[in-house]
């Protein structure tokens, strides 16, 4: 081995030496070389000084202004981080606006049609396309019929409320969680292993 290669070998061991990671025999050889090679000894002094300077860099702290989001979040909600509605809102924020508006309208429309069909509010229209009962005057309904209609309406409203609660549960269990899991799985497939991980694999 030439002198240059010998120096290079020892300089490659420098960090292990500084970390105390050399075997006793290697460490003895390393020290011996440093005693006899002024170039490598200067490199070792420089490496030691650099390590000391890096370790001396102070711990930094952010300004109070940087904590503003924390204070704002704490002020806005006393319910704690990321409740269901908040997570749903975050998810919806990431969905295109056309879908954000269109999906609830379509869902509400579908529910309305289903309820109307179930309650028999939509029947076979006559030639005018309008229910005969809707064309009739108020005199045709008795008081009992009106009371019964009000009761039916209350039942329908209760049913609608129950459907809303159920829809929320279904959205959370089947839609939000599955979609989130799917996003997480996609991110993991990209090799990051973390939902918040960057997609960058190599050195930046």
């Amino acid at each position, binding site marked *: 081995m030439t002198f240059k290669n010998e120096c290079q070998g020892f300089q490659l061991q420098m960090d292990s030496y500084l970390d105390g990671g050399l075997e006793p025999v290697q460490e003895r050889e390393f020290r011996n070389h440093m005693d006899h090679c002024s*170039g490598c000894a*200067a490199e070792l002094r*420089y490496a030691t000084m650099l390590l000391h300077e*890096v370790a001396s*860099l102070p711990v*930094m702290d952010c300004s109070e202004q940087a904590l503003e989001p*924390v204070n704002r979040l*704490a002020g806005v909600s006393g319910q704690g*981080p990321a409740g269901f509605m908040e997570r749903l809102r975050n998810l919806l924020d990431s969905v295109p606006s056309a879908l954000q508006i269109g999906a609830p309208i379509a869902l509400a429309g579908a529910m309305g049609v289903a309820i109307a069909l179930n309650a028999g509010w939509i029947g076979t229209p006559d030639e005018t396309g309008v229910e005969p009962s809707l064309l009739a005057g108020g005199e045709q309904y008795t008081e009992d019929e009106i009371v019964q209609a009000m009761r039916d309406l209350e039942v329908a409203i209760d049913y609608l409320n129950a459907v809303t609660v159920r829809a929320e549960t279904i959205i959370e269990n089947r839609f939000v969680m599955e979609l989130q899991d799917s996003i997480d799985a996609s991110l993991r497939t990209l090799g990051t292993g973390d939902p918040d991980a960057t997609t960058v694999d190599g*050195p930046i």
Partner: protein
Amino acid sequence: MLAKYQQAIEQYRRQMFSFAYYSLRTREDAEDVLQDVFIRLWQHWRRIDHDKMGAWLMRTTRNAVVDHVRKRKSSRQHITDELIEAEAPDVALPETDAFRERLEIAIRDLPDPFRSIIIMRDVQGMSYLEIGHILELSQSQVKVYLHRGRRRLRENTALRQLAVDHELIDELDLKPAERVTKVTP
């Protein structure tokens, strides 16, 4: 729950901010990154393993820094920063301060993961195991990257020049040892 959220931020914010600051070297950028992480913590609170909160926060901070560096590289801001640095007049800083300033720039300019590992290990004193958890690397990989990162730092020409000019080290060669092994008879 809210108290725990604030407590987590109080506990880890210095560690996170120091990491972001030495990675980016501007307070404004580091605070932007930190705010982003605070919001992510809020959004993901229920899905985080709270026993590994520190690792999650540092990993998220590191990822936010990487994203920030990537965005800055493609913007005019980076060019402006470099111009300001290049044209900055030589202020009569004490020798050690000038060297420290150049050292911080050299650390910032290291590519990742060398930069992250140097900051976590040599500035913040984290263990190989902790760094491995954060960066999802084995301990031996962390060690290899650390040694390569330190070597790159030692080979930084501007830093060596400053050390020689200020006579911080005697007999230091401006050119570091050859990297490529040349077998000679």
